């Protein structure tokens, strides 16, 4: 089902990415087993309105980073499509004037900057690669402007990445991403390698830039507290599928899917000093061999026979129709809203 919103900057329609994880042919023949595929992303649909932020949250292995890579075209979809500003992504990628409109910020600012390049060359690379400017002085002025924009000094351009702290390096990554004047940024865990005080600096910077430049963000994170600070809408992923997609305030005040509720329950928070928490039982199953029906059913306190057999689709939730949720219990009204869920299993 398509995600109904205003003018989307980016839309994915039932997009999926499967990876072949079969053993080598000889071993497969000897063991008489077939091919195996890992369904990292298995049919998800969402849309991001221009000038807003959509966040995807989930635990490791849920496929959120694969979505980030699908959306910028680093992976091609196994099926489904990605539409960038009204145009299919495969066509948009072929056209450099379209390609420069999207950029990515990576998690690890230690690995994503070339240690042998000076910062000014790192930042100018997209300008050169897209042929946006030819004149050296012009490029120099643009780099200086970008460095100022992210809170560094134009003189920092002469230095090498190792001379900077983690937070400053992430600022350099942002400056590089901004150098081709993009409209859409994919941020894959941009602050999870940083300390909290520095994390706040980077998130504030990203918010300022969004306001000033009208950027659209796809924000990938496992940290719900961070997601709450930056998002307009939030999608929760579990085992390669979206289980809930809602406006941020709705999601954080009235989470509907049992998995989302469990996640909220699990966050240690300063305001809960000494509180006894009910941890979610069990662990995320392997995406190579996902459970039948609803992938969350083995850990879900609300699971019944239907959940084990039939995979739920994303539909508007009872009571909060702005929320899309894939859960039979919510659909049938047996989700005990407002009560704490006691976890199943150990």
């Amino acid at each position, binding site marked *: 089902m398509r995600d109904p919103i205003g003018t989307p900057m980016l839309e994915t329609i039932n997009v999926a990415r499967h990876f072949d994880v079969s053993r080598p042919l000889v071993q497969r023949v000897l063991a008489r087993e077939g091919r195996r595929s890992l369904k990292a992303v298995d049919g998800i649909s969402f849309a991001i309105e221009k000038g807003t932020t959509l966040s995807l949250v989930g635990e490791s292995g849920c496929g959120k980073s694969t979505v980030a890579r699908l959306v910028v075209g680093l992976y091609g979809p196994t099926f489904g499509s990605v539409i960038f500003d009204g145009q299919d992504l495969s066509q948009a990628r072929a056209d450099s004037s379209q390609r420069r409109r999207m950029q990515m910020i990576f998690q690890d600012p230690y690995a994503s900057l070339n240690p042998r390049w000076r910062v000014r060359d790192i930042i100018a690379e997209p300008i050169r690669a897209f042929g946006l400017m030819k004149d050296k002085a012009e490029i120099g002025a643009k780099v200086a402007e970008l460095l100022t924009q992210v809170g560094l000094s134009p003189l920092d351009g002469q230095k090498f990445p190792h001379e900077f702290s983690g937070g400053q390096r992430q600022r350099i990554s942002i400056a590089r991403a901004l150098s081709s004047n993009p409209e859409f940024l994919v941020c894959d865990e941009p602050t999870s390698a940083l300390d*909290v005080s520095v994390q706040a*600096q980077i998130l504030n910077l990203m*918010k300022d830039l969004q306001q000033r430049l009208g950027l659209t963000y796809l924000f990938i994170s496992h940290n719900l507290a961070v997601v709450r600070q930056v998002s307009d809408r939030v999608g929760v992923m579990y085992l390669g599928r979206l289980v809930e997609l809602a406006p941020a305030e709705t999601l954080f005040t009235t989470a509907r899917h049992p998995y989302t509720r469990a996640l909220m329950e699990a966050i240690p*928070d*300063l*305001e*809960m*000093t000494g509180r006894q*928490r009910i941890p*979610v039982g069990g662990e995320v199953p392997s995406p190579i061999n996902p459970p039948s029906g609803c992938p969350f059913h083995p850990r879900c306190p609300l699971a019944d026979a239907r959940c084990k057999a039939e995979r739920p689709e994303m539909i508007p939730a009872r009571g909060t129709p702005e929320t899309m949720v894939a859960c039979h219990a919510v659909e049938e009204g047996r989700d005990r809203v407002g009560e704490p869920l006691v976890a199943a299993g150990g």
Partner: protein
Amino acid sequence: MTAPLLEVRNLRVEFPTRRGTLVALNDVSFSIAQGEVLGVVGESGAGKSMTGAAIIGLLEPPGRIAGGEILLNGRRIDNLPYSELRKLRGREIGAIFQDPLTTLNPLYTVGAQLIETMVTHLPLNPAQARAKAIEWLELVGIPAASQRIDSYPHEFSGGMRQRVVIALALCAEPKLIVADEPTTALDVSIQAQVIALLKSLAREKGTSMMLVTHDMGVIAETADRVAVMYAGRIVEIGAVRNVVRHASHPYSAGLMGSIPPVGRRLDRMQQIDGSMPRLSAIPPGCAYNPRCPKVFDRCRVERPELMPAGDSLAACWLYAEGAPRHA
């Protein structure tokens, strides 16, 4: 309160380098009582893991203890010979590290590792130790423990592996556990399970714990007292409620303020400008002075020691006599 189980006095750790000696820990003093959980927080490079490593005797060369003393039950342990230290580790001090994969030996089954630890430290024969190992695995919540005991570490998931590591740290019934970022490598839902487990086991066995983490949420829920470190020194130490809710030191206040709350959305998050100084360039006076919003003249020249500040101790001149009154 009885005599503390662990006492660290004026600990100083140095790293000799070609460009001069770096002081990684400078004059760190604290104590942990029997059964108490002390949280140690701070940003990366503040010296929290270093403090843990110094206590366990696992400082990586060329780092060395250059001053001060560490006492466990009144006995000095920082100057013990290697063989004595080996007996101490595991038996009296257990350690839990961030990454369970590097803590466990991939070539031995988890059972073999548990049994070896117990046979070394406790008066048990291998058969008794095996029965005890199964008990421990059950206690930390490994399903089908009597079969899983013969599995290798790679056959467990991350959360299960960390449970094995906890069993390994606790199985010789040490009096003190040094847990260095025990949940950082885990997902939120698993993190909650592991913290709950660690907390209940420590309480049950009366074990003291030094919990090193950068996650204030974990500290708020687990620790009794908390020490905040900055640039190799403790800047504030006090009961967890006081430090989290009414931090005295401007750095602790900034650190608490910059944690994004999950309960509400802020227009703008509170941030601390700049970054922590490198060990080679620690400013004179209070190390935090270039970033401090409440800095005054004295902070730039004279280094503050821990002094009473409200119900906590803080190393900040704001709490000395004659300090300017800041709001």
